[in-house]
């Protein structure tokens, strides 16, 4: 997930020139920006002082997905991030949307997810690097952020948001969702699946094997629009694929800390048992499960070996079965459909979202974020 991250304020075209673009958030907040020739909407917004949720900024992740009215060109992008049928319905990815006439953009998040000014950066000390799955490839990283003038020692973010991590003095960055909860201890926690040949994976593997004494990183963020929707008492079901668990774990831990009463269910999917994170090694999440009034964990293994007696299949398979049971239990009456939060590889996100909508869950109750290996 390397990306040419925006450099705020750099190479600023004349602010009064370019095509007008009106960005309107889900809660009606309006931002007016101008897009210079050859400039994408995301960059134009950042140049105007509005940092919109985004991640890869190269059309791969779908984090800057929005609905666009008006003629524009769309740059290279992944069909997983922007399926053709969505494109046909007016959706676009703002990081590769180049206006050819004035645009109206409907942003699928509230105004409070827009960062005004520049994205904050803080230096962080590595506190711990621990493997949390039997295969040793899913790693929990705990960071201690240094205090700064704006936040002091506090680490403030909405559960579901992500940060970008780099090494001091280096350009390369990787985006990871925060797995803990906003806190005043200065801590940030990440869940990382080590990828063969991955840049940060390699660094983490080194820290795991050789130690991380005095290791430091730079944390940029928080960013992102994924998060809990405070809209009543409907059950909250979380569908995670691999380390897509991280933002969902943050949400569940927050629900526990805040004393939220909604029933919770987490579907956690992996390819094989050795990839399954051990909850004993994620004690805060385990404690959240213990304190929530009605919480269940449904591990799903796609290709189990003979020893597995849990759910066989993907989380989307488990979801399909449980939603059908929920509909049947209503006896033909109104179904109390859960709010769904889905995070994982694009294929899983698409499958789970499609399963939910096909079962009858209103589309506006399905919230998702795609994560790509990095």
């Amino acid at each position, binding site marked *: 997930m390397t990306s040419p991250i925006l450099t705020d304020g750099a190479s600023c075209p004349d602010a009064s020139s370019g095509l007008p673009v009106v960005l309107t958030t889900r809660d009606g907040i309006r931002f007016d920006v101008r897009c210079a020739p050859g400039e994408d909407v995301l960059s134009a917004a950042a140049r105007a002082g509005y940092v919109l949720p985004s991640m890869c900024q190269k059309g791969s992740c779908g984090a800057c997905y929005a609905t666009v009215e008006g003629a524009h060109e769309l740059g290279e992008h992944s069909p997983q991030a922007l399926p053709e049928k969505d494109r046909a319905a007016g959706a676009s990815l703002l990081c590769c949307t180049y206006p050819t006439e004035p645009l109206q953009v409907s942003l699928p998040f509230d105004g409070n997810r827009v960062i005004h000014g520049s994205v904050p950066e803080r230096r962080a000390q590595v506190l711990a690097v621990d493997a949390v799955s039997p295969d040793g490839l899913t790693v929990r990283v705990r960071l201690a952020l240094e205090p700064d003038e704006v936040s*002091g020692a506090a680490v403030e973010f909405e559960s579901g948001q992500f940060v970008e991590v780099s090494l001091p003095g280096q350009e390369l960055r990787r985006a990871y969702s925060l797995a803990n909860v906003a806190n005043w201890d200065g801590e940030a926690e990440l869940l990382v699946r080590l990828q063969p040949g991955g840049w940060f994976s390699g660094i983490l593997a080194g820290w795991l094997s050789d130690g991380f004494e005095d290791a430091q990183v730079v944390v940029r963020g928080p960013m992102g629009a994924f998060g809990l929707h405070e809209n009543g008492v409907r059950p909250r079901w979380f569908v995670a694929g691999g380390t897509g668990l991280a933002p969902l774990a943050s949400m569940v831990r927050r629900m526990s800390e805040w004393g939220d*009463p*909604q029933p919770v269910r987490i579907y956690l999917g992996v390819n094989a048992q050795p990839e399954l994170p051990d909850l004993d090694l994620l004690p805060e999440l385990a404690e959240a499960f213990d304190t929530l009034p009605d919480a269940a964990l449904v591990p799903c293994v796609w290709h189990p070996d003979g020893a597995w007696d849990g759910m066989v299949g993907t989380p989307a398979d488990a979801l399909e079965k449980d939603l059908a049971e929920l509909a049947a239990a209503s006896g033909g009456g109104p179904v109390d459909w859960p709010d769904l939060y889905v995070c994982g590889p694009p294929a899983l996100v698409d499958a789970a979202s499609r399963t939910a909508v096909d079962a009858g869950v209103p589309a506006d109750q399905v919230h998702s974020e795609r994560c790509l290996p990095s």
Partner: protein
Amino acid sequence: MFCFQCEQTDRSLPLLGCQVDHGTCGKDETTADLQDLLVHVLKGVCQYGTRARALGAGDDAAADFVLYAVFTTLTNVNFTATRFVQLVTEAAKVRDRVRAGYEAAAAAAGVEAEQLDGPAAFVPERTTDAMLLQAAEVGVRAGVETVGEDVVGLRALVLYGLKGVCAYAHHAAVLGQTDPVVFAAVESAMDFLASDPTDVPALLERSLELGRVNLRVMELLDAGNTGTFGTPEPTAVATVPRPGKAILVSGHDLRDLAAILEQTKDLGIDVYTHGELLPAHGYPLLKAYPHLAGNYGGAWQDQQTDFARFPGAIVMTSNCIIEPQPAYRSRIFTTGPVGWPGVRHIGPVAGSSAPVGQHSEPTDFRLAIKAAQALPGFTEADAAAQGPTLTVGFGRGAVLGAADTVVQAVKDGAIKHFFLVGGCDGAAPGRNYYTDFTTATPSDTVVMTLGCAKFRFNDHDFGTVPGVDGLPRLLDVGQCNDSYSAIQVAVALAGAFGCEVNDLPLSLVLSWFEQKAAAVLLTLLALGIRDIKLGPTLPAFLTPALVGVLVEQFGIAPVGDPAADLAECLA
């Protein structure tokens, strides 16, 4: 949803009231409807409660729950839909307990228990969507096609006055001041509303009865405040912060403020008041804490700006919260009846046996303190800013302590008129009336104020009354919660001059926003006080016919042109 309980209700449609998606306050449709449903179930609690009490089997704990639960439905108190689902369910359980108590008391007394219907027999559904369908049948406009707008308006006047009574009674109760007479009156009023009353004179009389009850409630609250924290005394309050870690406390709850002061003692954290907690600085036992450092910001409607700038933790203890902005959403905490979705709510100390939201144990503020310690706090540069010093503490103790001076000043002609200009502040542009009115008052007049309306003019230098040694022209009586104090000052002045309050050279110019103000207004009317000027707009729930009654019987007039109104007062 339909809601017209506050001053900022939507007046853009032919039917005045918030009725689409969100209220002006930010309350969403689900929360608004669930609040209606909660009020309905609480009526059921009181249907049994009033009958049980008549048999000598009053359930004070249930009545106390009613006070708290009703308080959550006031404007700008609790916006958390999940909390209301819990409260509806809890209220039904309380009602069933009270019913059992009533039936047992009836059996013991050898009388047949009444079989009640309406809210008493209401069974809330289990899911939110089903509850919302039920709520559609019990809103404040239910039955309007049959009974007409005037009856709906009067029922609203009773309900909203009652909400104010409950809120003040809850404030008193957290300080240990309760009275079975108040519990009985609240239960009786809710039982009255449960009967879907249509008799206009009876509705009007019930409104005034609530005003009388509220006087007793305000007396209890006054006793709670002064009995716990001492009699307020004139005190200068800094508005420029000190360098260092900081907590800002807003709302009205002196007990929560005291707990925060005690729990932050010797931790190097300064505590600042905001909005209606400004008068806390006048209480001897609160100002004795050296880290009660000053007041920060203005009235409640300024909080989004004030809180975003505040570099520490923020605690909202009662009304009036508005949508926390991202800049401070992670560092604001609610307590007591207050709530906002996604904002941390902190409750009683661990191990407390107190029901959620009620008050037998002090609140544990460790989380807010931890936040304050982590956040940057004020810098030396912040402390170098300029700001006015505000003077508070002119409650009845201080004013009546100087009664001889004041009475003599009136007799000597040094003071020609008193104004009581107070109530709620708000965002409406017309509220600058109160600035224009007070700053134009002549130097031989005294302006008493209470409530957050004072923030419209309390940074103005009114000076002292010429010829009267050191008597300020602006006397801050306290919070809206201190209305009893202002009434006692008026009554004492009338006594000193051997006249009625209405005969004093005193004009009441009031500003209303929400239901506490409705209760205070009913108290003033019940006391027979006439010719009150009320603004910035009249309540939307009062129909033209009802306004006509208030004008005819009490001489209430809407505020108009400040200069003309001032001239009329002085004529």
